[in-house]
């Protein structure tokens, strides 16, 4: 399956290579570099590149390309998913997944890669199993190991590897037993200029941080499980129980994990929590343009909008801007033409606005598209879909855990289109 792995940084250097079968020369990456040159943006490198003898499947994360070399037929997603799992593991181990972190921990990285694949086929990808085999590096442990001569490598087969619950190790002990669940929803929307919604959908996840002693068996129930249109589970969730009773029943992994991700269908009307009024005008022939932007909350169920950030890619003809924000700070990069405005919190009594003029390149023609405006925001203590956790129960252990549930809504890909609708084609319908 996976023959070799090359890690390539943004300047096109291979800084790590690992082979699981016979060695593949790193010159195979030349095909990748070619594709990289052709692509205008780093993201535009195609994930699957055929070469005469191999196939290169790559993912880009944290500005590092993870390039896997494949020699024969394999589902591409299999490789892609695995590479992402590798990145997640590195992140888990080193806190960040950067070139520097990988280089500093190159031995651990190598040991990890060795355990994760055998002959190119995934062997152990579950984080808790890996952590028993290879303990994550900490400064303290490094020092202790130097003195005592002990190692970071486990000597026993991790208990999870053979058990029916491979995601949980046995003998977990905590003095404070706690289980926290974060319900985080992201709203993706495209709003047209008049403010009507073109498309909107809510994606949610429940991230959990469970630190419980022993082998607890948890059940989590919702007030309104019908809202969840499509779900995917952590393997620990008992699917049949969900099918039958709409209850999440599971023996949790130890630590942080994603319990559930869900989708609230776009058929349900999604309440858009924010509106944007904007007016950007360019006059033909003039070197000045007007820019006006106001935003305000709408349908937020009494919760405030926080961490609001507006960004927009202005047309190439714009040389500079001279704008006045009523609150927060704004920034315009004349090179990338990226305008960003950090609004902060929105006070419903006093709506934030950004007004002023733009100077245009002399003689440049009028841009034919008003720029798209991307909005980011957060709403604390509220899940936009209205999803509510009913209760969390624990079986199998005697102590009383501390339980906490937090809700949050975030903007995902939320954009308002600034289109000149006037010239829309005459459509018969």
């Amino acid at each position, binding site marked *: 399956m996976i023959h070799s792995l090359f890690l390539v940084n943004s300047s096109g250097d291979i800084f790590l*290579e690992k*082979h699981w*079968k016979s060695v593949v020369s790193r010159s195979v990456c030349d095909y990748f570099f070619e594709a990289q040159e052709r692509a205008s*943006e780093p*993201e*535009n490198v*195609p994930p*699957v590149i055929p070469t005469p003898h191999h*196939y290169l499947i790559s*993912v880009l*994360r944290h500005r590092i390309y993870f390039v896997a070399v494949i020699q024969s*037929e*394999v*589902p*591409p*997603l299999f490789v*892609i*998913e*695995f590479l992402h799992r590798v990145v997640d593991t590195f992140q888990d181990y080193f806190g960040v997944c950067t070139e520097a972190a990988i280089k*500093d921990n*190159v*031995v651990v990285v190598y040991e990890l890669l*060795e355990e994760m694949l055998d*002959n190119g*086929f*995934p062997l152990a*990808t579950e984080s808790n199993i890996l952590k028993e085999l290879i303990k994550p590096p900490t400064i303290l442990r490094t020092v202790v190991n*130097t003195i005592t001569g002990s*190692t*970071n*490598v486990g*000597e026993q*087969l991790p*208990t999870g590897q*053979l*058990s*029916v619950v*491979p995601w949980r190790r046995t003998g977990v002990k905590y003095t404070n037993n706690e289980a926290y669940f974060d319900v985080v929803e992201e709203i993706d929307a495209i709003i047209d200029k008049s403010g009507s919604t*073109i*498309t909107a*959908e809510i994606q949610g996840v429940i991230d959990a941080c469970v630190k419980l002693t022993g*082998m607890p068996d948890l059940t989590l129930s919702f007030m309104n499980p019908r809202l969840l249109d*499509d*779900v*995917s*589970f*952590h393997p620990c969730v008992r699917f*049949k*129980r969900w099918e039958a009773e709409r209850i999440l029943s599971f023996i949790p992994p130890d630590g942080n994990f994603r319990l559930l*991700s869900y*989708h609230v269908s776009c058929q349900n009307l999604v309440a858009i929590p924010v509106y944007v009024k904007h007016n950007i005008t360019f006059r033909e022939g003039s070197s000045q343009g007007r820019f006006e932007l106001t935003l305000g909350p709408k349908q937020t169920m009494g919760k405030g909008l926080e961490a609001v950030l507006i960004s927009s890619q202005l047309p190439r003809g714009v040389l500079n801007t001279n704008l006045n924000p009523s609150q927060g700070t704004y920034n315009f990069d004349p090179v990338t033409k990226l305008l960003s405005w950090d609004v902060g919190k929105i006070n419903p009594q006093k709506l934030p606005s950004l007004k002023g003029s733009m100077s245009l390149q002399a003689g440049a023609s009028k841009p*034919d*598209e008003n720029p*798209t405006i991307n909005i980011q925001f957060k709403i604390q203590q509220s899940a936009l879909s209205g999803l509510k956790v009913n209760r969390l129960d624990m079986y199998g252990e005697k102590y009383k855990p501390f339980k906490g549930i937090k809700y949050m809504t975030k903007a995902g*890909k939320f954009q308002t*289109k600034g*289109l000149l609708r006037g010239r*829309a084609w005459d*459509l*018969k319908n």
Partner: protein
Amino acid sequence: SVFLLILSNVSSNYLLFSHDLVGSNCAAVLGLCGLLNSSTCSDLFLLSTRNDDLKEMLESNKDSLKLDAMKRIIALIAKGKNASELFPAVVKNVASKNIELKKLVYVYLVRYAEEQQDLALLSISTFQRALKDPNQLIRASALRVLSSIRVPIIVPIMMLAIKEAASDMSPYVRKTSAHAIQKLYSLDPDQKEHLIEVIDKLLKDKSTLVAGSVVMAFEEVCPDRIDLIHKNYRKLCNLLVDVEEWGQVVIITMLTRYARTQFTSPWKEDGLFDENSETAFYESDEKKTKNGDEKKSYMMDPDHRLLLRNTKPLLQSRNTAVVVSVAQLYWHLAPKHEVGVITKSLVRLLRSHREVQYVVLQNIATMSIQRKGMFEPYMKSFYVRSTDATHIKSLKLEILTSLANEANISTILREFQTYVKSQDKQFAAGTIQAIGRCATNISEVTDTCLQGLVLLLSNRDETVVAESVVVIKKLLQTQPTQHSDIIKHMAKLFDNIAVPMARASILWLMGEYCERVPQIAPDVLRKMAKSFTSEEDIVKLQTVNLAAKLYLTNSKQTKLLTQYILNLGKYDQNYDIRDRTRFIRQLIVPNEKSGALGKYARRILLAPKPAPVLESTYKDRDRYQLGTLSHTINTKASGYLELSDWPAVAPDQSVRNVEVIEPTGKSKLSKSSDDKFYSDSGEEKEKGSGSSSSDDSSSSSSSSSEESSSEAESDEEKSSSQSSEESDKSSSLSEKSSSESDSEQKKTTKKPPQKKTVKPTTKDSACPLVCGPGERLHGFVSKQVPVSLSLYSLCILTPCPLSCAAALLQVSGPAFVPEKRHDLLHRMTGKGLSAQYQFPRQPCLYQPTMVSVQISLTNTTDHPLEQIHIGDRGPTGLDMHCFNTVECLLPEASVTVSLGVDFNDSTQAANFQLCTKEDQFSVSIQPAVGELFLPATMTEQDFRKEQGKLLGMNESSATITMAAENTTRQPISRQVATVANLGVVPSGQDNIHRFAGKTASSGAVVLVTVELRESSAALITINTEKSVMGPMLLRDLKRALARA
């Protein structure tokens, strides 16, 4: 940490200046610095110096130094630098006690062994020794490395090691052996036949850990040996949910291929499928009887349905590869109306990483061409965002175009209009192409689109204009008559368009429709004559074309122009243009040499041309199995396995039936002793009840199973039909039963294990028969002594038989048989028939997995009761062996009959009907958990070993206060034996009492420890992998032992 950092800097500087000094102090400091920051440190040294250092460190006798050296070597390897010259120094450390050092040496070995074959052989004996290590992790990693060393000379050793590991008791080691199969195969394909044997063996493995890996090996080594799958098909389907996610992908892909060869197409008559939907399947038995005569309609093979049903939950997996593999399975196997279930999940994946989106969108693109309806409700999910990568954008366009129909076209076109204005011009061009496709596919909007595209001709961006021209050209070809004004418009724009393809397209249009624009075309030609030399080749060719066509239609005006252009073309640098010019001249300019062809010049050049068909590049891509690499790159990747067409007639279905007997060599042995046992078991049957001696009962139990196996052999047809019935039943059963997955696997777990070793021992009557059934547990019992030394040396390559895998766990006779009888049927409700049952605690005669139950029937009426038998067994469907019908029971008489019930290791009641000639009574047998065990004897040592394997989740314990009378050995033993059918394990300590047994149905080990503490407190510990039974048994024991 700051201090350490400084230290490391200082030390490395120091070393830089004194690198030729090699002393132990220096090395120690170096070690510290290497540990802290190995990569930066190693950068400081020149290669040769460093290697000397490293060699020195490797040869020192301190593990920490060696470890540091290895870490730096690994850093070198990671960077792609050559460290092969250190091989002799490194390989010496292969037997190190330090596990991390050893692992790093393994990594090194695997990397360089191929280059240094002779030296690599030095390490082999270490691995051979490690293969016998009691620690399964060490065994597994030894096998991993041994098989990764690509040295052809050790092929026989690898083969042997694989074979041995394939029957290792640890599933993890067996998994590793499955991986090793592929490695050996790529090293030496000649071993194929032997490897297939191992694959066949491992395919029968019931561990979920092994399943994925062995199927992977199967796919790599012998994907065409579909016959190996038959017997394991149902097991794989049932295990699938519990297999690790990577294995799921591989198994699903393989099963898709399998199913296409074994089942008939569900797509033929779409109308009839509703009958066979999910709900219908549950009642398939009834359906069959009702619809028995309607053989024409399509009936899905239950195995086909099983696969679809068991893969469906995996659509909810967090692993995107699993979701897509299920999606492709449904796409290729499910009836058309059921494919819809995958839509939502695929759309969900669009939220994932960019690369995932790319692959998923490709698959959706292929699907959406054939099945618009599937994705139309989710159209908005395919709207392009400005932040999408270019290849994602074009895929989304592709899909939106495929989804367009009369109803939604206006929405889609409105969306497209916004895309045209995108700053990403490549994407804008793609959108224009897409508009063109919509226009040709949906005739209602052709005009609108054409008008819109004409508007775009005045766009400021060149690429947009050029693309529009190209698309307009294609559209005009479909209906040229009405559009001369568009052609005129384009002629006007001609001067402003620089993109060669667009210019060429306009010229072609002029020429093709020159009769509709008689004024303009010659003028365009005039302009082209002026600029001819500076044009691109493609434009030149079209200019020549235009000249020729005009010459034919309007020679008066264009004769001189044409000749001029032909002359220019004659001396062009490009040979294509020279060729074309020569050809055109011969064709159109009449002279003596031009033969008959000249007459037809007009018909040749101005022939009506068919309009181009604008179609997706994803059309027909589903000739490749979806989700594969070949599908993504649209060419056949090496190693791609074709998906065959559905067979017209389904191959024999019975091949998947799991027969009771395994077709192994051992069955031959049993054949020879058939007759004797057949008669034996007959006698036993007539006696009707289990005898008390344990010897006897176990022999009869083995012989009765013998009987069933010999039946299966002698009467092939009967057995297959019988077992297919059985499997039908149990598959519907598993559907109904609760969420526990082990009950689903019932069918597979109750299969043949008990057959394996019974026969050779039973043949010799002197041999204690008791060990027979106990053999089943050998999977849980470790092989105590590694007798086979064959792997120790290189020269002896024949495997020793594992002769003394002695049965450490033997089933013994019951320690105590409780007299307690339970009411089955009271005489009042039973209209005079009363029945009581008790558990005789004898191994069941009929099947070893059953628990035997004795029922005493008493007639309290004044007339004889006739034909007492067991009727309908109700929906719980526990496997039961009924007693023979009691023909007549006289008044006041009573009779004892025995019954076997497979409780499946659960305390679920067995419900059935007790019938007489006239009446039927619903009764149920509710077993206490303790009755589901068979007692076992083992040594204290074995007990501890077993207990060590069953910790954690498998352990339940409680502290109780013992009743005063229960503090000595005998009462405790008696109390425990009353509650549960367990055997006493001799114990060295007075305060610890041990009991052992195994569950009747699955043979799982059950261990009970009662440890007396001071002041009549006691700790009860139960170890069993049956996580439900453990706590139940604990509860019962607590009740029995605690103070009242």
